[in-house]
């Protein structure tokens, strides 16, 4: 049951287009920043499709461009020194080129974002209640009493005890988990159709992480809301996303429905990510499997496949030619690799590298830490 009625909802259903099943359609999005050293490309030809009520997980390490991606889609990046190209269609309407004033129609009401660190995303000098009711009053024209009641209901729905008291408290008086719940409450206040969760649990204790993720899922189900969950942790999206996209160096290097991804991953990078999650079954003091090396320089990236310098499967070709995004046997599964995991070509490539004692291969297969460090030095 929706917690309130949106005035704008009426007009929207009338003008809704027939193919509005596709909530979000991003095509060839490209975002780069002008730095003193040159143009740094953080998002490089990314395409995404998201339907209403579904969850897309975007996974990548630091520097992969995942945070920029979500902000770029939402249009939150500064206009100064930022180059943004490509198409973003929300419910069929193009929003990529819109001005801030036009985007304000969407922010808060149609799409919202939950940020990584709840301590810094809440205004330290304003009471929590104010920060929630503000959106309500501003977007939905509620009066004081209404907004207060709605805010209370919101807080309760995100699982905050003693909601009444919390409304008149300041952020620094609350624990990290509670703060993030409040951030979520603020984001959800006006009932957006799309929620961007940008590393929502990274800044929280492990024990609280699961709670927050569960809360997000629950809210999503109740509101039939789509969610883009951005994280560096494959484990976070494992049970919670319908589709997962793996990002590296600003590009989507593999994209598949969750089960397919875990069962039939093709990108060596994805394999590396999966392998690097420590498992409970492993005996203690097992060496952690890491992917040696660092993400490439975004201003002048290497030619060919961006992951090649760190890839255990890399061959000569990979350093020169960039692989295209190709579809695998299972429909809906795309990847960018010349020598994918789980294929004969890939296996051959790996063996060739192992016998050549390539550090990346050794590091990946044998968990050889020194080898990994050697990759780092390269």
């Amino acid at each position, binding site marked *: 049951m929706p917690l309130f009625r949106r005035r704008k909802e009426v007009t929207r259903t009338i003008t809704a287009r027939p193919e509005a099943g596709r909530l979000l359609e991003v095509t060839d999005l490209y975002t780069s920043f002008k730095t*003193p050293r040159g143009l740094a490309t*953080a998002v490089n030809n990314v395409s995404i499709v998201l339907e209403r009520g579904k969850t897309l997980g975007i996974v990548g390490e630091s*520097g*992969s461009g995942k945070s920029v991606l979500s902000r770029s889609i939402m249009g939150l990046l500064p206009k100064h*020194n*930022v180059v943004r190209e490509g198409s973003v269609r929300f419910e069929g309407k193009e929003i990529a080129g819109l001005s801030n004033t036009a985007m304000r129609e969407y922010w808060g009401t149609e799409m919202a974002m939950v940020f990584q660190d709840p301590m810094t995303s809440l205004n330290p000098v304003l009471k929590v209640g104010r920060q929630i009711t503000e959106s309500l009053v501003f977007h939905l024209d509620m009066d004081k009493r209404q907004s207060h009641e709605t805010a209370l209901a919101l807080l309760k729905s995100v699982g905050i005890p003693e909601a009444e008291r919390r409304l008149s408290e300041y952020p620094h008086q609350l624990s990290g988990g509670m703060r993030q719940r409040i951030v979520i409450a603020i984001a959800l206040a006006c009932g957006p159709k799309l929620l961007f969760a940008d590393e929502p649990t990274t800044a929280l204790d492990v024990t609280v992480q699961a709670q927050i993720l569960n809360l997000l899922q629950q809210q999503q189900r109740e509101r039939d809301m789509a969610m883009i969950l951005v994280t560096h942790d494959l484990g976070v999206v494992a049970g919670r996303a319908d589709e997962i996209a793996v990002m590296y160096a600003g590009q989507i290097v593999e994209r598949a429905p969750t089960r397919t991804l875990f069962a039939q991953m093709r990108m060596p990078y994805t394999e590396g990510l999966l392998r690097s999650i420590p498992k409970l079954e492993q005996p203690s003091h097992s060496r952690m499997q890491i992917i040696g090396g660092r*993400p490439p320089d975004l201003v002048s990236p290497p030619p060919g496949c961006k992951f090649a310098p760190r890839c255990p499967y890399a061959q000569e070709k990979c350093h020169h030619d960039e692989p295209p995004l190709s579809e695998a046997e299972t429909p809906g599964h795309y990847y960018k690799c010349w020598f994918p995991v789980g294929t004969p070509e890939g296996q051959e490539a790996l063996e060739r590298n192992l016998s050549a004692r390539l550090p990346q291969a050794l590091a990946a297969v044998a968990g050889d830490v020194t080898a990994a460090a050697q990759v780092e030095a390269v």
Partner: protein
Amino acid sequence: MPEPSADPIPAPEADTMVAAGVQPLVLEAATAPAVAVEKAATKKLGVVGWIAIVWIVATFGSALLAPWLPIAEPDETFIRNIGDGPSLNHPFGIDGIGQDMFSRVIWGARASLLVSVGSVLFGLAFGGFFGLIAGYYRGRLDTFLSYVFNVFLAVPQLVLALAIVAVFASEPTVSVGKREMWLIISIGLVSIPIIGRITRASTLAWSDREFVLAARSMGAKNRRIIVRDVLPNVLPAMCSIALLGIAVVIVLEGGLSILGVGVPPSTPSWGNLIATGRNELTKIVGANTQVIFAPAIAIFLTVLSLNYLGDVVRARFDVRESAL
């Protein structure tokens, strides 16, 4: 004395390379405090910087060399030219009683700079010393000194300086030297807490560094560490505040002159030129603006140059006044 302006941008929380990519760019777009100053901090001294240096050198130079410069005597009267505007012989014109303004401004620089540099040195010597030991030894010494600084800062400076000079050196027949000395002492005293606080903050930051710890662990005596390790690093902050301080004192001397306790009018100083000029202005309206404008422009350009250079020194050495 002004506190250096707040440091513009805190270090970005860059745990993701992308965040690091975004932050400096947004910063770049957003930060242009004293635009040319920031440029100077990273590159070489800009045009403005060099102009400032040239002006300062010229001013100090002509002040020092005044007795030997081919200019008129400051109290020489050109009775025929009273009230004349600027001309070839008298670039700044003649004042209301026939004196050459150009010469008076140059001699005025002598007195003003003497007082300002003198009091800043006084303040640096004592304030710097106290700040250094407070920041280095910390503990109770620091608490005590900080307390003293705060107490002195709680009193308005002009009033304090005025009181001291008025009491000790305001008989009508006071000699220029005596008045100048007391001006230096009183303004110097008043500036001690400010210089002390800045020095202390800088010392605190630098004493925390590992090379100090390393020196101490090798058995170096504290005094040696302070002088050889800490002081050279604190010096830029002190230089910056010194430059800014000289500017402030020049203005302060002006204010004190207007109140009657500046350098006595028998010897020109920029301050008393303005004070006496004001009186003349009211009597000979329209005729004699150079009487005010000449010293005023001199003060303005000197203060501007000193402010600019002080900012450049500070920006170049980027001392964070975090724990003030």
